[in-house]
């Protein structure tokens, strides 16, 4: 109905430059204190400088990809910008095609190609070099371990998870070579992952992103093997690994994606050694600003340390690393930023024991 579309246009003009933003999320919602929250914070930060912008948070409750896209389709008419955090939203490209005047910020996935088309003028898709974050975790773990045994726990061997795993292993390897540590990466054969090409990639995979019970079993099994630091990139299943660490003595975890320090508190302290980050909020804010300034450009970006998009927690009261470790992390961070170090990722042709900068 063309008339309806016209109305929307006039409405938008009447409000002047008021940007109408929607954030559509997977079941956990914008206030999950985690992944979605970080994206939402980017919008809130933007709104501090643009007080007449509005934001509505919409939550899709099933977690199914088709449902996720449907939720976007249901509301797209009423907004100028839609922020969609999560791989579930890759299929919004079809909506973007139909709504060239709307802008989309897609986080953690590239849009699904429509025919030959992979890039869309109105979608800014950001993905992150998880292997870099994993690398920092690996270096920190190798430097901090008391038992000399560390491990990485993941959900399912999808590329993002394998990136984290190999990045972590690269980091441990790097520390062993350059900082004189002697850390061993423990892998349980029964939890080895099979990646999307059906190759066995090792690691410790829970086999699920929403099964904390099995997460705890895997965590316990690793602790039984003597592991005292676990890097956890396993979604909801990860909470089980955290619990296992809390129940054990002297075992720590490294969080991922966002600062997970608050998830680690328990009666005797905190099990979160540090968290390695994907800096989504600053990138969401950047793109919203770009929209305001008229410089917004659709693209599929793999974001790295060079734009401060990957990293680790810096605030002193949000991590438990020694000063020495922090110094070494700063050191490798610069090398990663400069591209001197390129940790191994699922499909970048490197492996944890052979990557540039090792």
């Amino acid at each position, binding site marked *: 109905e063309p008339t309806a579309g016209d109305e929307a246009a006039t409405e938008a003009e009447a409000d002047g430059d008021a940007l109408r933003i929607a954030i559509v999320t997977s079941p*956990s*919602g*914008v*206030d*999950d*204190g985690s992944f979605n*929250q970080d994206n939402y914070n980017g919008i809130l930060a933007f709104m501090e400088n643009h007080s007449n912008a509005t934001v509505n948070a919409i939550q899709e409750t099933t977690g199914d990809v088709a449902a996720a896209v449907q939720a976007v389709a249901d509301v797209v008419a009423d907004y100028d910008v839609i922020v969609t955090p999560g791989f579930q939203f890759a299929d919004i490209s079809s909506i973007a095609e139909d709504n060239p005047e709307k802008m989309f910020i897609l986080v953690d996935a590239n849009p699904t190609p429509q025919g030959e088309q992979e890039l869309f003028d109105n979608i800014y898709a950001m993905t992150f070099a998880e292997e870099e974050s994993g690398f920092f975790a690996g270096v920190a773990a190798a430097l901090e371990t008391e038992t000399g045994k560390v491990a990485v726990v993941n959900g*399912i*061997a999808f590329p993002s998870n394998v990136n984290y795993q190999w990045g972590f292993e690269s980091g441990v390897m790097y520390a062993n070579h350059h900082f004189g540590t002697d850390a061993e990466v423990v892998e*349980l*054969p*029964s*939890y*080895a*992952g*099979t990646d999307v090409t059906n190759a*066995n990639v090792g690691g*410790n*995979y*829970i*086999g*699920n992103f*929403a099964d*904390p*019970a*099995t*997460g*705890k*079993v895997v965590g*316990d*099994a690793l602790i*039984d093997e003597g592991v005292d630091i676990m890097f956890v990139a396993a979604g*909801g299943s990860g*909470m*089980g690994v*955290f*619990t296992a660490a*809390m*129940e054990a003595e002297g075992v720590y975890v490294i969080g991922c994606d966002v600062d997970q320090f*608050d*998830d680690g*508190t*328990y*009666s*005797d302290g905190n099990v979160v050694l540090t968290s390695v980050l994907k800096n989504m909020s600053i990138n969401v804010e950047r793109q919203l600003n770009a929209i305001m300034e008229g410089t917004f450009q659709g693209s599929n970006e793999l974001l790295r340390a060079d734009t401060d998009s990957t990293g680790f927690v810096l605030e002193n009261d949000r991590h438990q690393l020694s000063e020495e470790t922090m110094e070494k992390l700063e050191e490798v961070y610069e090398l990663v930023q400069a591209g001197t170090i390129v940790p191994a990722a699922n499909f970048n042709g490197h492996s944890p024991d052979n990557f540039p900068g090792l």
Partner: protein
Amino acid sequence: MIDRMIIDGLAFALPLFIIALGGIYSERSGIINLALEGLMGFGAFSGALVVVLVLHHFPQLQPQGIYIAMLFAMLGGALFATIHASLCIYFKANQVISGVVINILSVSLTAFLTRQLNTLIFQAPSDRFQLGVANRITLPVLSEIPVLGAAFRNLYPFQFLIILVAIAAYILFNKSRYGMHLRACGDNPHAVAAAGLDVERIRFSAVVISGALAGLGGISFAYSISANFSPMIYMGYGYLAIAALIFGNWEISNTLAAALLFGFARSGGYALARSLEMSSNFNDITMTLPYVLTLILLIFFSKTNRVPRSLGEIYDKGKR
């Protein structure tokens, strides 16, 4: 590995058992209770909410946290159970339907409230209540027994409480006047009324008790699995408890055996997976172990099943 199997098996079986025990109270009084899943979840929600509130203001109470949580989980479960009890007893609703509806309500209500309360009260948006863990306890002497000693190692505080509550519930159920009246209600409520007792009150209290026990089980799972309350607690353990109690023929001791079977089949499944060293993909297959086992055992044990005679029947004083 066997240690781990015993420890984890018990830690899973006991909460499951106490939920099923709640189910026994309700069903032996004549009220079908498919609502256990929802009662368990709501109980866990209440316990977690209260403990988070208390610790927010009195952080020094941290060590007592788990006990506060268990107490309020029982209260919350009991409170939520009054809905099921009222629907089934006073509003004469179909008991199966009421149970299913309560489960649906519980999931949506706790998810909604958790989010709202975190933002409103703690100004910290989150979809869960962080609980922290309970210190685990190892019993001296007993834990030194070879192999079986594992059953006395690394125990959660809730395991002790569950055992205490279960013993009390057992005595109340099988030895006390109240228990005798309750079991009679499940067989022939008219006989109970003729004996000058109030059937509706007995049944109401039985359902409320079942809510309290389910709540206790729920908060135990919350502590032992993810150390927080989130809607992820609704993993179907309430339904599993129903299976356990039917498997246990509505008898407390048999149901304990059924719950232990589930617990050990589950931890045994994990142990099996580890020893076979198959890749993580096969986890899903080993996870089916408890259910396959149950179904097979049911084939042998169901013939003699004795459903409480008046189970599910709407009690109408005037009916002859």
